Every structure is written in C-alpha cells, then in structure tokens.
C-alpha cells in the first residue's frame, strides 16, 4: 500500500475523462465515468458485456459523441481536434471487418498510406506471425489471424496511444498469451495502451491498472494487486492427508485464522505471504505426510463479485 502512494502523483495523463455520460434512447450506457490513463501504462477496462466499455472507448477515440462530460486525449479534444488526434492514435474495433478480397499486405500498404507517418509494416507482419499470410485475402483468414491483422493496422502509424477493444475475444489460450506478450512489448516501447476485456484473468495478468465497470459506472480503479488486497480476503492453503490430524497444530500458527477439515481434505485460511511456508514447515516438523498441496488466492473475479454482488457472466 505505502509503496503505491509514492509513485502516484508524478505521472502524466495521456487520457483524462471527467463525468462522461452517454445515453441510448432510455438506456444510460455510461454514467458519470471519470478516470485518467497515465502515459506508458497498460490501462484496462473490465466488465461484463454491455457494461459500457465500448461506448467509453469510442467516445475517447472521438468516434462517438458523449452526452455529457469532458474528455482530453494527448492534450486534444477527441471530436473538435479529431484530425489532429487520429494520426497519433491506433484503433482496433471490437467487431472489425475489411473488404473480403483485400490481401493482408494490401491492407497494411493502404492503411500506412493514410497516415503522415508510418512504421515498417513488413516488420509488423513478421512480429505478429502473419508473414506467410501476406498474400491471403481477408476472408480466408482465421479469427485469430484477423485479430492480429487488426492489431497490425492499429500499430501501422506508430501511435503514441493504442486502443484495443476486446482484443482477445475468440482467440485460443495460446494465441491469447502471445497477444499479451505483444501488448507488453508495445508498452515497453513507451506507448500507452487502453484495452477493454471481459476476461478478468487478462486484466489481472496484463494491465498495470484496471477500472472495473458495471452498468455504466466505474466501481473500482487501481492496480490488480491493490484491488485484490483491498478485499482483505484470506488466502487458502489446501492439501490432502490420510493421517490422523489435530487441527489446532495449524490454527495456532501465525497468520492462520481457521482450519477446516472436510474428510481427507484440509483447508487452512489465513493472511500474509508466509502462510504457505508456515503450514509446510509445521507439517514437516510434525512428520505429517501430505499430498496435493496448493494455495488459492483471491483474484479479480472475487473483487468483481464482492463489489457488484453478481458474477461476471450473467
């Protein structure tokens, strides 16, 4: 907790959103949303489908007119200064498509010609594993290949700020992990990334800071570690043993709050990073043989559940 407070105030904001509001007919899609995205971070907005993520990202991109609130992106107004902003940002849409018979290389060649400044897109193809697909038509690509092409198009102008909307939806776990590495690589080049996702694990593993959004409102915003820690939830050490076992042996250990025995399965609840070490040491010194020991930690999913009172997938 203390370490976080030292680093916070110095950072420059790439995006500043204040009291953003957007209404569709009678549905309030985004309601009084305020946050900042710092330069050089991966900022994630996570929440269930329909929570208002895409509306928020599109208002910031300047593609949708907000009904209220102020937005500043790289010091510019996204709608008034739209054409000054566009060359400096990269955009990937949630449900994108290109012309069916457009070749991968033609798409990159076309999009790079639309910007005053562009990167070497051949290198991008290589980096995204699309080099052997450069002459393939868009409609012949797999879902994952299309997604990677959209990322390439979002990076073709070497943007300072990249928007990725539900980037890994439809990707298999392997491709998803490769995409995470790629996004970290973008950040490591000093760029800012704003992504939305409905995968809590993705937000937890990838993002420097996460805003949890539900029904158009931000319910929490912090680093994933802080969000989880703020729950104050207990860690759990779980193992199986066939030996007779007195639970007070473990419940007296420092940090342990309680011990549950369900048949052969023992669950130790407690706090602190040393919990597992204490438990293992106690078991070994008492010569108790155990199997299948693992620790279970609260995750962002638990944070979401605690804050909103419902599961992510309703």
């Amino acid at each position, binding site marked *: 907790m203390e370490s976080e407070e030292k680093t916070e105030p110095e950072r420059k904001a790439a995006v500043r959103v204040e009291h953003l509001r957007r209404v569709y007919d009678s549905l309030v899609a985004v309601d009084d949303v305020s946050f900042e995205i710092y330069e050089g971070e991966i900022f994630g907005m996570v929440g269930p489908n329909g929570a208002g993520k895409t509306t928020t990202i599109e208002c910031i991109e300047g593609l949708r007119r907000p009904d209220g609130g102020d937005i500043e992106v790289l010091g510019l107004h996204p709608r008034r200064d739209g054409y000054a902003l566009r060359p400096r940002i990269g955009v990937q849409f949630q449900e*994108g498509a290109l012309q069916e018979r457009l070749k991968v290389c*033609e798409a990159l060649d076309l999009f790079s010609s*639309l910007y005053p400044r562009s990167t070497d897109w051949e290198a991008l193809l290589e980096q995204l594993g699309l080099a052997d697909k450069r002459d393939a038509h868009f409609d012949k690509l797999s879902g994952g290949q299309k997604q990677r092409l959209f990322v390439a198009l979002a990076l073709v102008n070497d943007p300072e700020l990249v928007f990725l909307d539900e980037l890994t939806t439809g990707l298999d776990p392997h491709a998803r992990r490769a995409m995470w590495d790629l996004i970290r690589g973008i950040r490591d080049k000093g760029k800012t990334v704003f992504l939305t996702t409905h995968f809590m694990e993705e937000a937890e593993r990838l993002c420097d800071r996460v805003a949890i959004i539900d029904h158009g409102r931000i319910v929490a915003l912090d680093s994933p570690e802080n969000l989880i820690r703020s729950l104050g939830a207990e860690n759990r050490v779980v193992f199986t043993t066939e030996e007779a076992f007195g639970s007070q042996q473990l419940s007296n250990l420092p940090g342990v709050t309680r011990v549950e025995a369900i048949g052969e399965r023992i669950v130790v609840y407690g706090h602190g990073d040393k919990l597992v070490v204490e438990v293992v040491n106690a078991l070994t010194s008492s010569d108790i043989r155990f199997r299948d020991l693992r620790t279970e930690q609260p995750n962002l999913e638990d944070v979401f559940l605690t804050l909103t009172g419902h599961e992510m997938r309703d």
Partner: protein
Amino acid sequence: MRGLRKLTWTEMKLFFREPMATFFTLGFPLMILFLFGSIWGNKPAKEFGGFGYVDMSVPGFTAVIIASTGLIALAVTMATYREKGILRRLRATPLRPHTVLGAQVMVFFALTVFGMILLIIAGLLVFRLRFAGNALSVFAGFSLSTLSFFSMGFILAGLMPTARTAQIVAMVLFYPMIFLCGAYIPFHILPKTMQQFAEVLPLTHVVTLLRGLWMGHGWGEHLKEVGVLAGLMIVCVIVSAKTFRWE
C-alpha cells in the same frame, strides 16, 4: 492525396476480383451488343435517322452500364461497407469523409468509362460504328448522367438497412428501367401507356441525351434531358447528404 490515390487503386483492384460484378457490369452489355448486332446488323435505318442499330446501341448500352454501376454496384458496395463496419474503420483513420466517398465515385466512374470504351471498340472493330457528334459533348453528357445515377446510388446505400435490401431495391429499379428506356427495346414499339411510364424513368432521359449527342444534336435540343438529370442530381445529393450513414 496519397491516401485517396491508394484507396482508389485498391478499390479498383477489388472490383476486378469479383467476377460476377465484372461480368455483369462490363461483359454483359458487350455480349448483348455482339448478339443483337449480329441479328440486326448496322445498316442505316429511317427510324434511327440514318444511323444503324449498333450506332444507337453503343450510347444506349452505355446508359445501361451507367445504371448498373450507379444503382447496383455503387449502392451495394457502400451498403456492404457500412454493414461490415469498413466505413467505420476508415473513418478512424485521418481520411476525410469526402475522400472515402470520392474514391468510390472515382472507381465507379472509371469503370463506367471503361465499359463505354469497350462498347466503342467492339462497335468499331466488328460493326463499322458511325459517330457524328462531338466527343467532348458526349463525354459531358455521359458525366452528367453518370453522376446523376451515382447520387441515386448513394441514397439507396444510405436508406437501405442492409446490403441485401439495397441489392433487391436496386434490382427492382434497374430491370424495368433498362427494358423501358429504349436501349434494348425500341421506344416506338412500346404501347402508349408504357411510353408514358417510360418517360418518367431517369434512364430514358440518359438514353435520349446520349443518343442525341452521339448523332450530333446540339445541347439546345436536349434541354429537357439535361434539366431532368441535373435536377435529379441536385435533389439526390441533398437527400443523400442527410440520409447517408457511416455505421
């Protein structure tokens, strides 16, 4: 400028990758010209003012190409691009809206010119095509007609909810027009009521204008056609500016 050039060139290549569209727009009128030209020949005839069947078909079939690029190809392409989010994707780049639309107009204008050139070449090589007009006048009349039909295409693209409905409505407008405009079936053999109906169709005015200019008529003889097509274009541009949607 570089963006406009690249987008236009890319879209042009994409058109030729669709064999159906290419045949329908460019191949079909050529095929009909060979077919009917072989049946009727190109002898001077009194009802054509001393010109032959093929002499009248080249400007007439050009009108059909204008209708098929403007009403069908342009409208369906734009509706498809909107439906799939391609227009939206392009709007997220520094391209200006008029550049995105301008590229499409240039592509389909060039294709229409290309279709007309194919008809002229075929007419010259096979049927000893006669021409008594002024090439610049014909091109001016051709451009007016083409842009007028393109503006109708933009209305269709904007109003129709999907590419599929745009295609159906385009077909419903296209087929009666090409058979009644006088390009395929001589106008004078139509019954009186059909003639009156045909007079209302914009394509009939295109056929009359292009044939007249082809035969060397002055603009003064075609003020009605010019007025109708120019008026139609102005109205359609205003309406499509209000109804066109990017997503």
